[in-house]
């Protein structure tokens, strides 16, 4: 798992010279990134550096202004690509959970399985219960999101994404909206997911998690990747001034 130097591994996500502007504001200024199968990449960086935007370009929640994004062998930025076909295989977990409030936890996990993967109700239910059990919420299956704590909601959201058998999981500050005592549970789920070999791209401010779990850490600032490497390199021996500042700032906090 930690052997990220194996360059022969086939990239599952490949981002080439990605630019994204909102009007006059250029948020991504040419980003290149490869994420290999089974790899856990943690993206760090100050607020506004474009981490979320980069992540959201991977499943085209944001449409890049220029540049290319490949998923496995498909160029998803090509107009011919059926993006929903790609999104089936790309799980995403949001800072604000975004559970469907009108459905129970179980129905949240079942919905896309039935409608997108066309699984039978029985199979969807079986998978849902399995995934909810994995995140430790089997007994909350029939609760509505409003009846769950933030941490529980986020774990349901993870189960919902995992039920689709994604090839890669995107986490955008999955724990930032949680009360401190609830962060642990969600991080544990993410850790065990990483241990099982899931390919993950994780935007987080949890330095401990990055250090323990990441195969590679990517530091972004001002819409570009400033520095990347294995956690020990980046954390203990940052090369760039901005990385040092950022890490120093974080550690101080």
């Amino acid at each position, binding site marked *: 798992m930690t052997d990220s130097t194996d360059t022969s591994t086939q990239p599952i996500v490949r981002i080439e010279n990605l630019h994204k502007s909102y009007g006059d504001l250029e948020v991504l200024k040419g980003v290149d990134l490869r994420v290999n199968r089974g790899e856990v990449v943690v993206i760090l960086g100050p607020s506004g550096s474009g981490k979320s935007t980069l992540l959201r370009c991977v499943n085209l929640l944001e449409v890049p202004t220029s540049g290319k994004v490949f998923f496995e062998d498909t160029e998803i930025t090509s107009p011919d690509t059926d993006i929903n076909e790609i*999104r*089936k295989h790309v799980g995403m977990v949001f800072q604000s959970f975004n*559970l*469907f409030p*009108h459905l129970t936890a179980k129905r949240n996990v079942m919905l*896309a399985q039935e409608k997108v993967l066309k699984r039978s109700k029985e199979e969807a239910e079986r998978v849902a219960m399995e995934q909810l059990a994995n995140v430790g919420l089997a007994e909350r299956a029939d609760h509505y*999101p409003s009846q769950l704590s*933030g941490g529980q909601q986020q774990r349901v959201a993870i189960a919902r994404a995992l039920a689709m058998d994604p090839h890669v999981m995107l986490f955008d500050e999955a724990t930032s909206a949680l009360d401190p005592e609830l962060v642990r549970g969600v991080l544990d789920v993410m850790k065990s997911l990483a241990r099982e070999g899931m390919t993950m791209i994780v935007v987080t401010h949890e330095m401990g998690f990055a250090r323990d779990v990441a195969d590679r850490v990517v530091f972004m600032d001002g819409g570009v990747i400033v520095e990347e490497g294995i956690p020990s390199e980046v954390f203990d021996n940052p090369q760039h001034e901005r990385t040092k500042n950022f890490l120093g700032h974080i550690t101080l906090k």
Partner: protein
Amino acid sequence: MLRSLQQSKLFTVVAALMLAATVVFSLACPLQAYALDVEKCTARANQDGGAGVLGATETRVTWEAQADASESITALTFTLPAGTTFEVEDTRVTQLTGEDLMDREFLDAECTQSGDELSIVLDQPAAAGSYVRVEIYGVRFPAEGGSMVLTGTYQLTDSSVHNLPDAPAIKVIALSVPEQISNWLADQSWVQAWNSVNFLHLFFDPTIMATSFPVVFSGFLQALVIVAIAFPLAIPCGLILAFMRMSKLRILRAIGTTYVNVVRGTPLFLQIYIAFFGLPLAGINPPPILLGVVVLAMNSSAYLCEIFRAGIQSISAGQFEAAASLGMNRAQTMFYVIIPQTVRRVIPTMTSEFILLYKDTSLLAAVGIMEVVMYARTIVAATGSITPYIVAAIFYLIITLPLAKIVGNFEAKLASKDGGTSNKKNRKNKKKDQPQKVDANDDQGITPAEISSL
């Protein structure tokens, strides 16, 4: 042979029995004397503005008979049809004599009542062969109405009692239950006291209330039918308009927006006039009810469009993004994620719109559709009391008030089930014992452009 013999025997027995029955029957009944002729038996018309005789309403019965030259009447009994009531005090017996029966002489008599029977004993026997008129006052025939026949007996100076020949039947019109109630009310002293206050009589006359209720009720049913078709029709139209207004295609957006702005920017009254007077000029003559339904549905769909649009846009962008990130297409996102949440949010405003539409059926009175106000107006015109309009108001309220209540309960139930941002209990808990945290649904609303881009 044997059989036919038996048959003829049987026939003889039956014939004998029938004969015996006839004899017994005729012996059992008093002998009929047809010497006296009943000339007339009528009841005074008591119908408002009509010539009919109503049941359960006071009338006067006039009965006239010509006695045979040999007969001098000393007493009379009348049996009124079952269920008929009458007053005995004012009963008047008149003897008419002379050329064209122009000479009238009131005969003093002792009148008594027992059940349905009125017995009249003359102080002096009437002249032999006289023409006698009896007037019975305060008669109320049964409410069910029907053909009323007076029977009875008369007694002559020789003490012989004879049956009166059946009088011509009086046709009594059945009284409807509301009319009966109204009549009954009119007799109550508290109603009379109530109506003696002019304001109460003008606006809240109980007797008019009773009679206008069923009439206005038929208008109520008409209005219900109209709104029960128009509103469900308006819902999909409103939804389509809402999607048009949020469409990626400029032309669809323009059509939707123009329609909504024009419909919402002009009075419904005017729209009704344009449809009802414009279409016939164009040679199109749809049934008025149908046209009424269509105009109301078209009007309401514009308002519903805005309700739906606001509802959809109030759903957080995160919901669209979550659905999209799971590979759901636009239609799936709408049907399984957005609309179910929107329904819960728009129910209160949709109900208000339903209430508005239901009330707006009254505008159709202007083009002759018989709905609540139209019916009320006809009774107001006939009675001069505003009471029917008050009854009309009641018919609006019996729909609108419970509806508001039911929807309130429905919302409360939904809120306690899946909460969301409108969950009061949740909100309270959060304030009390949980530190501030981002609510999953508290994101900014989504703009049409954002929806289109997903």
